[in-house]
């Protein structure tokens, strides 16, 4: 358990550095806000609307396929650890696993879901 102490120290150091930087800049800077300073930064143009815009729907399909294959990759880790002991048997199992998921990406591809329309 003690090896996770490093992770804890990293987390606290990360939070601390960010807070320290904000605090320091808060202490050092002059505080003089006016309207032009407070509007959203849009490359020196006047911004149109708010920054809370809606994303385009087509991003969603990619996020969705990403989630499925993320789950698949999580299963690859323990498989890789025991692969040396189990050999061919484990390989065949994983080929079946990935093969079934491959139908999914094949379906998405055939249906044109991967195309940027």
């Amino acid at each position, binding site marked *: 358990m003690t090896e996770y102490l490093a992770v804890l120290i990293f987390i606290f150091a990360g939070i601390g550095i960010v807070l320290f930087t904000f605090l320091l800049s808060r202490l050092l800077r002059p505080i003089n806000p006016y309207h032009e300073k407070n509007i959203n930064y849009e490359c020196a143009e006047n911004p149109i609307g708010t920054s809370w815009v809606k*994303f385009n729907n087509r991003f*969603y399909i990619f996020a969705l396929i990403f989630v499925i294959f993320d*789950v698949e*990759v*999580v299963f690859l880790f323990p498989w890789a650890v025991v692969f040396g002991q189990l050999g061919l048997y484990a390989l065949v199992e994983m080929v079946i696993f990935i093969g*079934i998921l491959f139908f999914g990406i094949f379906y998405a591809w055939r249906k044109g879901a991967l195309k940027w329309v």
Partner: protein
Amino acid sequence: MAEPGIVFWILAVVTVASAVMVVTLKNIFHCALALILCLFSVAGIYILLNAEFLAAAQVLIYVGAVAILMIFAIMLTSNLASKAIRQSNEQVMVGTVVSVLFCGGMLALIYLTDKAIVSEETGVAFWRQVRGTLPADNVASLGGYLMTKFMLPFEVVSVLLLAAMIGAIVLARKEKA
């Protein structure tokens, strides 16, 4: 049973506080960020419970994928610019009563079980006797389970993921009118 250390209490407080933020904050986007914090601290709890692989899976799947998908769905659908959206319905009172009752009942059950169900031989609660020891190598033994004992669930998971993927693509694609 060893008392949980200070780390457990920090993680528990962060978990419950961010969970409360998830269910009460007005802006749904802030709720998603609080959800990420909550899932992350639950991963820390898993590490305290010697479940390293599960903690990694939690961070990869939940924090890395599901929470991002939630944020995507929020950005796709919610009208975040209007600040006056009422996020909770008229059942707040009922919901509070029900969940406080539920929580109290669960806690009472846990402590009563600890008091009541005592094994005859040792005189301590049934669930305070640890049987066996956890395997030292977490990931390797989980991998061994996946490849041998849990082989069928493992393959069925891939069928489930395939079904989820095809179903979601069918649902999410814009049909050509």
